[in-house]
């Protein structure tokens, strides 16, 4: 008898990403300047790499405790308290994960039941929505707008809340918009949430990349929110450690225990060597963050200035490392714009609709590239825009 492969029906319902189709086109070109990648262009700072090397040298190549090395969880606890004024017990309220991606997945897997509704702010990281489907729950999209600085407004949230709402995904600082939520914004959201029995998953992976005068505020630091919030974060963006696959979740004990149970069976533990590197990053990496942030900030200012001079409308991003200009004035939709830009000028950016339908009319430009690259890419994009307006 022939084997019959039957796929998980949740997986079958997940649509392939717009990015995949776009990458196929991009791969045909050689002299491409790609402003599409979503990871830092910096290498992991040397002292952090060295901590990884030392762990290898000393043969620390075994499984770690399921929740992660206690020393790492202690560092995370101290860091969260110092930077974001949120207190988490290292032994019971922190779980080290395989990147923050796993932390998000574990939260979904442990908190969602079929039929539950998950409120997702969009445009946002394109993983949140399909993974909700995978967990058998129902995504409910809340669209944010350029005119609001892509912030979530309390009235928008209220409108979407039903008796089935279980979880709100709060993705700030936001990939792809670069939007942030300041303390007052979060307080107004907390006011709505506190009236419900919902939880919040606050993805704070870009917390250290905030270019406004005040640093990142975590919703968990707002009154009455700690007990209903799961903060997910990691080392990838702050310390340029994407390949190490190391992140964490911080939440009340009951939630972390449940996540740990799942994590133990599915993953066992986060990579041990990466955990040692993570300890070093948190102990001695504050200066690296500042240096990288300053560099990103220069590029951010440069790109925004160039885009405005091209005549595009562009929200000035306050966080992450993306600019999300509005290209609807060119008369092209996001995908056509990106495809033409790629084919005519060999510059790759990502169509905004990859991050939700409301991202249509926008493109995501990543500035995790050297200034030299960025200058050349902006020159080409300017030519492209000028040629488009001549055609019309």
């Amino acid at each position, binding site marked *: 008898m022939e084997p019959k492969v039957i796929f998980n029906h949740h997986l079958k319902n997940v649509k392939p990403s717009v*990015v995949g189709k776009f990458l196929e086109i991009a791969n045909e070109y050689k002299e491409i300047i790609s402003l599409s990648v979503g990871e830092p262009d910096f290498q992991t700072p040397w002292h952090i790499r060295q901590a990884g090397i030392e762990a290898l040298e000393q043969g620390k190549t075994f499984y770690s405790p399921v929740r992660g090395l206690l020393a790492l969880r202690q560092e995370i606890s101290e860091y969260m308290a110092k930077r974001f004024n949120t207190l988490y017990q290292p032994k019971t309220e922190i779980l080290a994960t395989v990147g923050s991606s796993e932390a998000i997945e574990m939260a979904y897997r442990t908190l969602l039941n079929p039929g539950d509704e998950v409120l997702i702010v969009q445009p946002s990281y394109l993983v949140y929505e399909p993974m909700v489907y995978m967990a058998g729950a129902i995504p409910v999209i809340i669209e944010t707008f350029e005119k609001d600085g892509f912030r979530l407004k309390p009235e928008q949230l209220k409108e979407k809340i039903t008796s089935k709402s279980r979880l709100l995904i709060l993705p700030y600082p936001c990939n792809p918009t670069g939007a942030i939520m300041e303390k007052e914004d979060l307080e107004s959201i907390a006011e709505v949430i506190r009236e419900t029995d919902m939880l919040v998953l606050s993805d704070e992976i870009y917390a250290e990349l905030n270019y406004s005068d005040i640093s990142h505020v975590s919703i968990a630091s707002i009154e009455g929110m700690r007990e209903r919030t799961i903060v997910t974060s990691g080392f990838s963006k702050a310390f340029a450690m994407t390949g190490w696959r190391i992140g964490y979740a911080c939440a009340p004990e009951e939630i972390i225990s449940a996540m740990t149970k799942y994590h133990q069976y599915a993953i066992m533990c986060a990579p041990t060597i990466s955990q040692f590197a993570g300890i070093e990053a948190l102990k001695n990496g504050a200066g690296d963050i500042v240096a990288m942030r*300053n560099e990103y900030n220069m590029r951010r200012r440069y790109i925004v200035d160039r885009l405005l001079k091209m005549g595009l409308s562009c929200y000035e991003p306050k966080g992450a490392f993306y600019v999300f200009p509005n290209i609807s004035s060119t008369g092209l939709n996001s995908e056509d714009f990106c495809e033409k830009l790629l084919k005519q000028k060999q510059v790759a950016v990502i169509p905004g609709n990859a991050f939700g339908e409301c991202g249509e009319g926008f493109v995501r430009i990543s500035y995790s590239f050297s200034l030299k690259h960025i200058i050349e890419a902006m020159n080409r994009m300017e030519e492209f825009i000028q040629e488009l307006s001549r055609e019309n």
Partner: protein
Amino acid sequence: MEEVLKLLMQNARLTHSEIAVLLGKEEREVAKIVEKLEEDGVIKGYQAIINYEKLPHIPVFALIECKVMPKAEYGFQEIADRVMALDEVESVYLMAGNYDLAVFVKGNTMQEVANFVAKRLSTLESILSTSTRFVLQRYKQNGIILGEKEISDPRNMVL
């Protein structure tokens, strides 16, 4: 000021307006800072970094290690002044270690450099001995890699 300097060290051709955008300052403010840096002699000049291999004639570069007898009142300053006044000399450094002055020279031919060492440098009064090292290949200059090789982006687009 330091930020402006850092940018100019990376690329001296950035305009004041570009630097202003990068640093979130006013163009006038940047102009003032640069002017001050030049006036104070912090910025001594702006030069192109040349890959001579691309030119029809490749000059000869050499490092000449000089042992020097310092003079009682002047120390090394007097001999340094005399050496750096010579046109062939590109850089002069006082070194710690086995020799005293590191003198970098540029000439058209090896013979020219040899003549320079024999007739002009080693004849200077306080120079005790010289040792000439010819440069075989220049790979990197002032932080810029001279060869063609572009370092490719090792990142994979995963999402």
